[in-house]
């Protein structure tokens, strides 16, 4: 019975102590998580901002009060802004920023919440975009000529225009600012379409003309080559025939040289044979061979 009483007493002490410690801990401890910060106010007056993660302390309510802030990065996309570039072209531009709170106190005092921050950033972005793009041609953003493009420079200018103000006035750091969209006003689209259409027609005509030109070049080159080949063939044939004729002539000449008189005689007889056919009418003298045989022993001749 006495043991039970002792145990009960100890239990009460332990439970009471734990409860008191827990209450004291929750009243004074500040667990600041990574990516967040705590602003401590004493009787409503900002005391300090605990931005490093870890365990921090404060006096219990109602003396000190803590408010948490999200210190992570945020993306804010600005509105579409219509503006004139330096070369007087109407464009619609949209930018986005990556921002985060760096000065919790200034942010709380000057801005308040994230939503309010977006409103403030929007004005800043619009002004910076108008000022920066007004100093560049459209070809600084869209161009096939790499020397015209100045997107890096434009983004650097936008950052230089906005970051210091945001830092000082709102306690916000703008880490990145980029062009997210570049478009044309609705009224200008028709003109751009016409221009594109004309360009397409021009390309189509160019392709067709090139195709025809190239095809006829290939054809005529081939025809020329073929003609040259055939001409060479004909030349070769003519040379062969010529050489052959010379050879044949030489062969006959050799024969003729053996006995010119007899050769002439034989050739004449051959000619006679070739010339006389079934359409030939021969008119012979009765005193010529062989008819003369009937009269007398004639002389052999022609």
């Amino acid at each position, binding site marked *: 019975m006495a043991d039970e009483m002792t145990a*009960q007493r100890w239990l009460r002490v332990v439970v009471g102590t734990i409860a008191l410690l827990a209450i004291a801990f929750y009243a004074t401890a500040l667990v*600041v*998580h*990574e*990516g967040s910060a705590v602003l401590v106010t004493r009787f409503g007056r900002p005391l300090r901002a605990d931005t490093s*993660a*870890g*365990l921090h302390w404060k006096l219990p309510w109602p003396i000190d009060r803590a408010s948490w802030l999200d210190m*992570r*990065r*945020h*993306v804010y996309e600005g509105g*579409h802004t219509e503006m004139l570039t330096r070369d007087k072209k109407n464009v619609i531009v949209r930018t986005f920023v*990556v921002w985060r709170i760096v000065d919790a106190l200034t942010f709380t005092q000057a801005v308040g919440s994230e939503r309010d921050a977006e409103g403030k950033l929007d004005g800043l972005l619009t002004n910076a975009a108008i000022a920066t793009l007004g100093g560049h041609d*459209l070809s600084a*953003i*869209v161009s096939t000529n790499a020397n015209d493009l100045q*997107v890096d420079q434009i983004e650097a200018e936008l950052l230089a225009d906005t970051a210091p103000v945001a830092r000082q006035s709102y306690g916000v750091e703008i880490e*990145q600012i*980029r062009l*997210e*969209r*570049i*478009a*044309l006003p*609705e009224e200008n689209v028709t003109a751009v379409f016409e221009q*594109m*259409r004309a360009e*397409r027609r021009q390309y*189509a005509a160019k*392709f*067709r003309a090139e*195709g*025809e030109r*190239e*095809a006829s070049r*290939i054809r005529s080159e*081939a*025809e020329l*080559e*073929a003609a040259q080949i055939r001409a060479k*063939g*004909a030349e*070769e*044939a003519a040379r062969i025939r010529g050489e052959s004729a010379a*050879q*044949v002539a030489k*062969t006959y000449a050799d*024969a003729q040289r053996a*006995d010119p008189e007899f050769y002439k005689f034989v050739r004449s*007889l051959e000619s*006679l*044979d070739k010339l006389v*056919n079934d359409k*030939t009418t*021969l008119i*012979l003298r*009765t005193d010529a*061979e062989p*008819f003369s045989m009937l009269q007398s022993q004639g002389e052999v001749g022609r």
Partner: protein
Amino acid sequence: MRRSGVPSELGRLAAPLARGLDAAWRRMHWWVAVMALLYAVSGITVIGPDEVGVVQRWGRLVGDSPATREHGPGLLFAFPRPVDQVTRVKTKYIRELAIKLAPPEDTTDGGTRLDPLTVGYALSGDQNIVHVKLVARFRVREPAEWVFYGPRSEDIVRTEVSAAIIRSLGEMGVDHVLAEGRKDLIQTVTQRSQAGLDAAHSGLELVALELTGLTPPRALVNDFDAVQSAYIGAETQKKDAEAFAQGIVPKAHASANAEAQAARADAATAQARAEGDVDAFLALEREYRANPAVVRERLYRDAAEKAIASAAMVRWVPPPAPGRGYQGLRVFVEPEATLSPASETTPPPPPQRLPEEGP
């Protein structure tokens, strides 16, 4: 009841509470013990096979480098809250986000006016309007950065990829990008997006960008198609011409060869004939040299007979009268049909009978 060290008034006030505690303890002390034990081990966390765990102690991230911060799959021993807090991040899981710089799917009009607020598009380097649709696949690469410092994943991926598209398309010609430049585009957009994601401390890695649509405005599709078909037509014409060339040249070679070959054959034939003739002549000549008169006579007669036999008609005329020649002589050659075979060999009528009767 003992009241050691406690003012009796306070003790009297706390008495009901103490009685309640005593009663609760007597009834539920096992439950309390179990609950206390469960609380003590509640910090032990199971990290799944596709996860990484990061630990915060009193809110502060434990570990200095990614290697010491990140805990892989398995049991992770940590103190219970509020001391430690374990965050599990699926680092292998690949998320998808569709990014559209294109008209909404439900518009069906020809799209001759594009409202920049509702219809997305990008401008190419030669200031053409192009619609782009793509799907970004990304995962968490640095869990601590992603959880504690980075912006919302969807926001940053959409904006960085859009900015990269605007910029990359803005330096390419429309024809290049619609044809062989797609790969270039994807590559530069991926590079730029990743650089942006890194600069924003997003802790994200772009695994892949898949281009699901890259088209000219609907109103101009026909014009773009016309260029395409003109291009194909031109290529076809060239191919046809090349085929023609490939046909005609070998044919010319063949005909040139054939001609030369024919000439060679003719030459061979002519030569052979000439040699045959010459051989025959030389043989005859040898005979002639041995017997000139006989050979000559025989040859002459053979030729004369053959000529007379093969001639269609033979007419005989007397030798001219001395001193007169053939003045006034006429020979009639009558049509073959009217001639009898006998008349062919009939000597011609005497010339003096004929002068008056002309044909």
